[in-house]
């Protein structure tokens, strides 16, 4: 994965920060962002990659991620509810730069049900763009190894 040097050190300090503040109570998750399902016809128009780190402390989920190389500027980003590889409804809204590369973030209060969903790998991040309104980048959230 090619993440900018700046982005990388930023996310590293973020991690350091959280681990020092929250120690054992926090759980760290990660989503690798990659293109939405493509065919050979769409493979040159559904583009980009990224990484989102999610930290759960109590019911508070802190979301911090980067994306780059999308085909057009980002319009929206969400967390959806669905088991791995099975799309599902939007459950939370994320803040996102309206650019083809940039940051995605949020601080969310999860319901208990969604905390369970998170632990069961049943949440995913999806980024929509101008030319790919149904979604351009997507990544299921797994516990960080």
């Amino acid at each position: 994965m090619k993440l900018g040097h700046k982005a990388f050190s930023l996310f590293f300090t973020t991690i350091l920060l959280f681990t020092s503040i929250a120690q054992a109570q926090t759980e760290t998750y990660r989503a690798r962002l990659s293109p939405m399902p493509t065919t050979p016809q769409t493979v040159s128009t559904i583009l980009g990659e990224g990484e989102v780190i999610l930290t759960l402390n109590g019911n508070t989920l802190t979301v911090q991620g980067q994306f780059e190389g999308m085909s057009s500027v980002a319009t929206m980003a969400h967390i959806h509810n669905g088991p791995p590889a099975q799309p599902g409804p939007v459950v939370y809204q994320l803040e996102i730069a309206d650019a083809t590369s940039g940051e995605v973030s949020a601080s969310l209060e999860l319901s208990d049900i969604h905390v369970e969903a998170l632990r069961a790998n049943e949440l995913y991040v999806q980024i929509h763009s101008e030319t790919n309104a149904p979604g351009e980048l997507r990544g299921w959230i797994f516990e960080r190894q």
Partner: protein
Amino acid sequence: MKFLNTITVLTLSRNLAFAVFLGLALAACDSEVSNTEEDVVALTFSSQADAGASAFATNCAACHGANLEGTTLGPILSGFNFLQRWGSQTPTLLLGNIKANMPPGGAGTLTDDDYLDIVAHLLEANGVDAVVNALTASTDFVISENISSVVQRQQRAEPPAPQGVTVAGNVDDFVPFVPITDAMLENPDPADWPMHRRNYYAHSYSPLDEINTDNVGSLSLEWVWNMHEGDSEPAPLVYNGIIYLINPGNVVQALDGKSGELIWENWAGPANRQDMRNIAIYDDKIIQATTDARLIALDARTGEQVWETIVADSSKGFSNSSGPIVADGKVILGLAGCARYIPEDCYISAYDANNGELKWQFETIAEMGQPGGDTWGGLDDVFRAGGETWITGSYDPDLKLTYWGTAQQKPWVPVSRHMTIFDVGLYTNSTVAVNTDSGELDWYFQHVPAEALDLDEVFERVLVNRGDDKLVFSLGKYGILWKNDRVSGQFKGYTETVFQNAFTNINAETGEVTYRQDIQNAQLNEWTSACPSSAGGKDWHSMTYHEPSGTMIAPLSQTCLENAAREVALVQGGGGLAASRKFFEMPGTDGNLGKVGAYNVDTMEEVWSHQQRASLHTGTISTAGDLVFVGDLDRRFKALDVHTGEVLWQTRLGTAVQGHPVSFAIDGKQYIAVTSANGGTSPRTVPSVIATEIKYPSRGNAIYVFSLPE
């Protein structure tokens, strides 16, 4: 014959023009229509072709190239290859084939007229110049008869494609040829790799240990030989120091293993660019299946043809992409190309190795009134399709049983085949154990009944003895490693080697699978998302059994798909594959498409895995030197430690490493050989859609031979 509104304008030589005209006039009593229609509608063949050019650019060029030249994603659609395949057929057949199967990623907004336009474009681009009137869904002229250059060429005496022995030589001039016996095949010399996967049990294991975990780091290239271009997934044979190599286009070569010298070459035809995975050796013969479903024996010393027999009628779509196994003097061969709605079904068949005489056929599809015939939802026999055996089986000489996997029902999705998820369709997607003397079914075990996602269970059956247990292992596209008793077929266990979400339950006692609800109920044009994709958890690349450590080591793939069923009309000659698909990375794999997974055959637990971005494109082999060899799309050929999966050595070849590695010895020195190759369907298409950053040349079929420096 009906020449509805096809009028052929002849720029051909007079005699021929007259003959064709006469034919038309005689056959076209009802063709007045075309003249009147011409006045009303301005549509012409060439206006269709113009529109078709842009529809092709949008919908097909990504895979077949802007100029039909082919890419790594799809075959060439022009020139010799196209004419070879389609020249003798009609626009209607071409249209039907394209509508049923193309584009594999989804029909999208293509209308019937768009498809007609695309066919006109394909024909025009291939030189069809004797047609004026617009094509219709029933235009049935012979394509090549409307290409003036082809007609002229046929009138001149052109040198035909190579046929028969093209390079003469004799193995005896290199090493005295010793006929190979049943006993030698049952217990191969450690120096040989005398069949696909080396032994009857399909272990893909070499007992050689000169190259081992300590010294593999210094493995070096000994020689390389470029092969013919075309689709290729070859498994070389090595017997007594000679490499027998199947090339694309049904060409077999014999090479001296030590020097890389070509000894002989034979072209059995058809001279196309199609794939054949493996050949067999028996007595003094090399036995070869052809892509047009013939079986041929060559003299292993000289390459001269000894006998030939027809396995199935290739004009009905039957074909072979894998070769035979020779068991107890019988050449046993599968059959592919059985997706069409025609009365004939697929079979496994056996032939006398001495003369090619048919011994028996076992049909893989149960017909009405036969045992299992009531599992097809009452469909007429004509509409029961699938059950291909496109991967070579294995053999237990003690039980006299040959073990084969069968492919799924066709079309892919139950609703497309006018059936439900309860119409299991015997004997598709099963292991079948067939008696080698009688051709009768001894037992079957259906791994995935009523298959719904184009994920077949057709691959090699690996036979394993553990204590008193006689077992058979298989690993299909669902990525499930199955363990069955090979005497009774009884289910003995399973493990999931990659993430799958197609089944919500796999019964631990019986192995019975339950599809996810939305897959069970999938309706036409409804998208279903599932893992693995049609590239499989595992595909044609065979796994290896390392007996010393009791591990099965498999080349696996981690991608997922979205699938939408399409309508397939129940008409004779129709049928086909019929689903639209999109592909994506398997969640939780960090974008690693390739996985080598090692499984303990007793506990079925994963011992280790090696994961990497590039998909794997060779079978795995293991050796007594405690090594596993495997190659990938990113041109890397790797040696792994069989106990840990650690990469101990790797090198990069000219293009994707694809085929089946082998190990052999000459004069006590051990060699490792592997092919680089291009072509192939889902295992190539899917990674090139997902891992677009991996680049490799579209040519470069070759065999590379490695050894330790002196």
